[in-house]
């Protein structure tokens, strides 16, 4: 019980501190902007630890974060192996192939307004579909190794990326296009100098959506068959063998990888679309 009380007190204290910081005049400074969410995350962990200890929750149901951390440290080898298999091989390669293919397709169909008009509604529709469902089919097509995982990721990221890119390519305002016409600029020149840069905010929007899809896709696909390593493999078998702490360690890796991945894309976005009002803030 003590642990729970401590956690609650910690939570209240941290929240009060955060509230005070947010109201203070330093709220816009960089350290505070980083500190506040971090403290919030720490609070969540403390609360979790407090609940598990205070209420004596069985570790096969919900292990305490401290225990997960221990497992994490002990099994870094396994985690790294799985990370390489699922994130680097499955998710990342699928992500790259899918996004590049969608990007090129978008540019290719963009020349024909007929194709664009035909593909865009379909792309929008497919982007709204529960594509994860095709995982078993692709696993049976492409085998057990990471290729099938990459294939699932390719299909999952393709349509959101396609739709966003096509939208972006149409996003130039008529005045800018007219300007290029008065220069008698060719198709390629207009594409490179006007439409691609103008499309970048949309492209990055697609890239960001795709990051989370990529991880989900790669992990779910491993549920339908995999070699005997990989994050999805470890998670699904971990539940079976009651190594729930290892499962949580994998979840932590996934969340970490996802966050870093997303962060990288967001960082690239800042670099590339520095000129966009949303980035100038």
């Amino acid at each position: 019980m003590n642990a729970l009380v401590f956690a609650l007190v910690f939570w209240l204290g941290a929240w009060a501190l955060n509230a005070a910081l947010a109201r203070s005049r330093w709220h816009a400074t960089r350290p505070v902007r980083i500190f506040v969410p971090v403290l919030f995350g720490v609070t969540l962990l403390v609360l979790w630890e407090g609940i598990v200890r205070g209420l004596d929750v069985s570790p096969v149901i919900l292990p305490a974060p401290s225990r997960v951390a221990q497992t994490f440290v002990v099994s870094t080898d396994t985690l790294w192996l799985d990370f390489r298999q699922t994130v680097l091989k499955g998710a990342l390669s699928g992500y790259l192939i899918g996004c590049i293919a969608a990007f090129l397709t978008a540019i290719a169909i963009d020349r024909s307004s007929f194709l664009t008009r035909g593909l865009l509604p379909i792309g929008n529709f497919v982007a709204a579909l529960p594509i994860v469902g095709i995982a078993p089919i692709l696993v049976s097509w492409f085998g057990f190794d990471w290729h099938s995982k990459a294939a699932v990721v390719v299909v999952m990221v393709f349509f959101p990326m396609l739709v966003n890119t096509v939208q972006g390519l149409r996003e130039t305002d008529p005045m800018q296009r007219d300007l290029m016409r008065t220069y008698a600029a060719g198709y390629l020149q207009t594409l490179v100098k006007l439409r691609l840069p103008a499309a970048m905010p949309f492209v990055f929007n697609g890239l960001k959506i795709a990051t989370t899809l990529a991880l989900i896709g790669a992990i779910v696909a491993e549920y339908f068959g995999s070699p005997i390593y990989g994050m999805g493999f470890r998670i699904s078998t971990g539940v079976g063998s009651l190594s729930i702490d290892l499962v949580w360690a994998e979840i932590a890796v996934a969340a970490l990888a996802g966050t870093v991945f997303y962060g990288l894309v967001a960082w690239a976005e800042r670099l590339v679309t520095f000129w966009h009002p949303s980035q100038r803030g």
Partner: protein
Amino acid sequence: MRNTWPVLVVLGAIAALWYLAVAPMNIRGALDQAERAGAVVAPETPKARQEVSVWRLMIDNPDHIAAGYSLDRPRLPTPVQVGEELWKSTVGMALRGRAMSKRSLIYHGWVTLQATLWGFLLGTAVGILGAVAIVHWRVMDMSLMPWAIISQTVPIVALAPMIIVVSAQIGIEGRAIPKAIISAYLCYFPVLVGMVKGLRAPTVSQIDLLKTYNASALQGFLKLRVPASLPYLFTSLKVGIAAALVGTIVGELPTGAISGLGARILIGDQFGTPLAIWAALVAAAILAGVLVTLLDLLQKITLKRMGFRQ
């Protein structure tokens, strides 16, 4: 409706490609079948055929290509096969008065739909409340927003079994609620992001205008922020319901195996009946299409009645 014609053409092209792809995808299966039936194929043994590309096989055994279009367990079924299976398990069942039998996709679609709708309601509620909190309190904005993004990087599939166990421990029976929770987990995020954008849509001068009227915070919220956010809300609701459906199906994949479209996909995989998987996939697609279209309609009507220009 100027898009109808191009869409039809593109759909036609996709169907044609699909048909073409069936031949190479199924040639091995067709040859195995033919060999067992006693026909002579080249190369003769399955093991030898493993070493040969599908194109080679198609060239060497042109007579057997057609068989690939009517396999029982095709790697890639034809659209017609999928359509037939879908028809059989939906309308066919309904015609025999067994629309809600366990063998009917209508029943499984209904199960999935229920969980999706509950998840959607829950996710929307959480998303909207979160957005209101974020817009009104800076602490919330600073501490919650980054975690909302991080929450979406957690592989929800991994949590699914645990959510079931934990909810069982709290005394929640059945799979419906855990599925709804998973579905809400994916659904709340787009709603949250859209609503934050929407609630912040009013311009400074609109907010100032209300200040000159000495309007209270509540009045400002109801008369300005809420109506201004509606177009954003609907847009994100459409994304949200699609995400909710994905969540339900993901929730049904590893944890269900009982009922629902996700379970059908899983069972279809387990028993090696690809047609069942495809039919369930198409049913899920139709469900998604219907849900999004309904919301789209609702959006059009509401915004029109509210006077937003189309």
